[in-house]
C-alpha cells in the first residue's frame, strides 16, 4: 500500500520539522528569561569569580545561535561532558546535561517517562470505560431523565479542577476510609500489584476529568449515526432497536472516539502536571514545571520536545486509526 508508506514518510518529515521549530521557539523564549542561570547553578553564596567559572563551564556566555548549534550537534552527533575526573560521552540523540543536576537529560526523561505513561495509559482505560459507557447509555436513553443525570455527573467531572477532586478523594479514600494506600509511585517492573493499587486514585481523578469529553462525543456521534439513512433501512427490515444501537450506532461512534483518544493520550503525557504534582508522582509534567522555575534550559528543551513528540505522534496515530476505522477516508 504505497499510499500508506508515502503517508508515513510525509508525516515523519513533518514531525521532524515541527519538533525542530518547537526547539527553536523554546530556546528563544528561555534565552530571554530573566534569572541568572549561572548564579542559580553555582549556588546562592558563590563569588562573582565562581559564578563566572560556572558560566564558562556551561557555555552560558555563548550567543544564542552557538548554544543552539551545540544542541543540534548533540542531537545528531552526540556530545562530551566533563565530570571533572573524566570525559563522559553522551551518544546521539543527546539532549545535553541538566544545569542543576548534571544528569543526562535523556536519563531524566527515561526515568520519568514510565511514570507519566503508566498514569496516562491507566487513566485512558478508565476514561474510555466511564466516558464511552456514559455516552452509550445517554444515547440509548436519550431525552429521558437518566440521560440528564448522567450528563450532569460527567460534566461535573470536567467542571471541577483536578487538584480539588484529587485531594478530596485522597483524604476520604486513603485517610478516612483507609481503603487505598496513599499514592506513591511503585515501578511496574518492581511490583505490578502495588503499582496498580497506588495508581488507582490518580487514574480515577484523571479519568473523571476526561470522561465527560468522551461521553459528549460518543453521544453526539451515536445520535448522528442514528439519523443516517442506513439506520432507516435496517428498521424497515425489522431489525430490533437494541441491535441497531449496539451494532450500527456504536460502530459509527468508533472512529471519532479513537481519534480523540489518541489526541488525549498524546497531550496528557505532558499535560497531567496537576495530577502528578498533587499525587507526588515524579512524571514528565511535574519535572518540566520545576525545570522552568529554575530555568534549567537543557531539561526544559528536552522535556518539551518529548511532550511535543507524543502529541504529534498521537495525531498521526489518530489519523491512521481514523482511516482504518472509516475506509472511505483517504490518508492525505
Amino acid at each position, binding site marked *: 500500500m504505497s499510499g500508506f508508506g508515502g503517508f508515513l514518510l510525509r508525516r515523519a518529515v513533518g514531525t521532524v*520539522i*515541527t519538533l525542530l*521549530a*518547537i526547539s527553536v*521557539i*523554546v530556546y528563544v*523564549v*528561555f534565552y*530571554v*528569561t*530573566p*534569572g541568572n542561570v549561572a548564579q542559580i547553578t553555582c549556588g546562592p553564596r558563590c563569588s562573582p569569580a565562581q559564578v563566572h567559572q560556572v558560566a564558562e563551564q556551561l557555555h552560558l556566555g555563548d550567543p544564542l545561535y552557538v548554544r543552539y548549534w551545540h544542541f543540534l550537534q548533540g542531537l545528531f552527533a552526540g556530545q562530551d561532558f566533563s565530570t571533572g575526573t573524566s570525559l563522559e560521552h553522551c551518544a546521539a540523540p543527546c539532549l545535553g546535561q541538566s544545569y542543576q543536576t548534571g544528569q543526562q537529560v535523556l536519563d531524566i526523561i527515561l526515568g520519568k517517562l514510565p511514570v507519566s505513561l503508566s498514569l496516562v495509559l491507566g487513566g485512558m482505560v478508565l476514561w474510555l470505560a466511564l466516558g464511552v459507557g456514559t455516552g452509550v447509555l445517554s444515547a440509548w436513553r436519550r431525552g429521558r431523565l437518566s440521560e*440528564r443525570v448522567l450528563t*450532569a455527573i460527567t*460534566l*461535573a467531572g*470536567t*467542571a*471541577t*479542577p*483536578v*487538584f*480539588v477532586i484529587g*485531594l478530596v478523594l485522597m*483524604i476520604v479514600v486513603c485517610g478516612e476510609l483507609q481503603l487505598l494506600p496513599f499514592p506513591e509511585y511503585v515501578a511496574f517492573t518492581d511490583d505490578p500489584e502495588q503499582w496498580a493499587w497506588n495508581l488507582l486514585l490518580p487514574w480515577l481523578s484523571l479519568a473523571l*476529568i*476526561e470522561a*465527560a*469529553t468522551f461521553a*459528549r*462525543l460518543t453521544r*453526539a456521534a451515536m*445520535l*448522528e449515526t*442514528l*439519523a443516517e439513512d442506513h439506520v432507516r433501512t435496517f428498521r424497515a427490515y425489522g431489525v430490533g432497536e437494541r441491535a441497531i444501537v449496539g451494532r450500527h450506532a456504536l460502530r459509527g461512534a468508533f472512529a*471519532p472516539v479513537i*481519534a480523540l483518544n489518541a*489526541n*488525549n493520550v498524546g*497531550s*496528557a503525557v*505532558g*499535560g497531567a*502536571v*496537576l*495530577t502528578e*504534582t498533587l499525587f507526588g508522582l515524579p512524571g514528565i*509534567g511535574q519535572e*518540566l*514545571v520545576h525545570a*522552568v*522555575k529554575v530555568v534549567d534550559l537543557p531539561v*526544559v528543551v528536552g*522535556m*518539551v520536545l518529548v511532550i*511535543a513528540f507524543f*502529541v*504529534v505522534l498521537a*495525531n498521526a496515530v489518530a489519523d491512521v486509526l481514523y482511516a482504518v476505522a472509516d475506509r472511505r477516508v483517504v490518508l492525505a
Partner: protein
Amino acid sequence: MTESPLATPAAGTDASVPAAPGARRFWRRLRAQRAALVAAAVVALLVLVALAAPLLTALEGQDPFTYHPSLIDSARGGVPVGSLGGIGAEHWLGVEPQTGRDLFARLVYGARVSLGVALAATVIQVAIGVAVGVAAALGNQWVDQLLSRITDIIVAMPLMIMSLALLAVVPASFPRPVLVTLVIGLIAWGSIAKIVRAQTLSMKGLDYVSAARLSGWKTWRIARRELLPGLAAPVITYAALLVPMNISVEAALSFLGVGVKPPTPSWGQMLTAADVWYQAAPQYLLLPAGALFVTVLALTVFGDGVRTALDPRAASRLRIGTGRKDKDAATATAAAGATATDADATKKEATA
C-alpha cells in the same frame, strides 16, 4: 471538481417546507431546550455579579482587601473564629483563614478575574483561529502548508509549560490579568483554527461561493461577505466550549503559582490556597470550588444547547423546526460533529 457520483439530486422527494430565517429558527430551537435556558440564565447572573462586584460588596459593607486579624484564631493556624467560618450578618460568607478578609467580597471580585480572563482569552483565540483558518483555506498551496504547520506547532506545544515560561519572561510591571489573558489567548487557538479551516474548505466548494467569484468579487471580499457568516455557527458553538476551558486553565496556572498575583483575588488562587484547609475550614474550599463548578457547568450546558440549536440535523431529533432533515451543506452539521472532537483535545492538557 470531479463529477459527483450521483447524476442528479433527489428530484422526486417531497418539497422542503419553508423554514424560518436563521436567527428566528435558532432562538426557537434554543428556547425549546429547558436545560440550555436555565444555563443561559445562570451565565447571565454570573456576568451581572462580576460586573456589579463593587456594588454588591458595598451593600455588604466590606471590601476584598482589608484584613480582620481579630476574626481569626492565630494559635490554630489562622482558622476563622465563629461557626461555619464566621458566616454572619457582617460577613455573608464568612472570613478567609489566615488573613480574615471577607470571603463574599473576594468571591465576587474573583468572578471578575476568572470570567473576564476567560472571556477575553476566548475572544483572542477565536480572532486568531478564524484569521489563520480562513487564510489557510483560501490561500494558495504554500500559504496553506505554512499556516497548517504553524497550527500543528501551537497544538503540539504544551500549553501549561509555555504559559509558565512566558509569564516568567514578561517584567512584573506588566498588568498580570492582562498578561494571563494574552498568554492563554495566544497559545490555545490551534484547534479552532483547524475547525475553521475545515469548514471554510467545505464551504469554498459551494455554488453560491463560485457564483460570487463569477460576479467578479475578489477573494478577500468573498471571504468577508459569503464565508464569515457561514462560519458564525461552528465558531459560536466552539467558543461556548472554550470559555469554561479557559477558566480551568486560569485556575491551573494559579495552582502552579504563575496565575493572577495577590492581592487581586481569583477563584483559581483561592482554590490553590484553600486546598490545605479542606478539614479545618471547609467553606474556604467549597465556595470557590462551587462557584467554579457552577460556572463551568452552566457554560458547558449552554454551549451544548447552542450547538444543538445551530445544528439542523439535531433539530429533527428534537422534533421541532422543519421536521425534515436539512441536507443544506452550508449549515454546521459536519463542523458541529468535528467541533466536539477538536475542542476537547486541547482541553485535556490544559487542566489534567
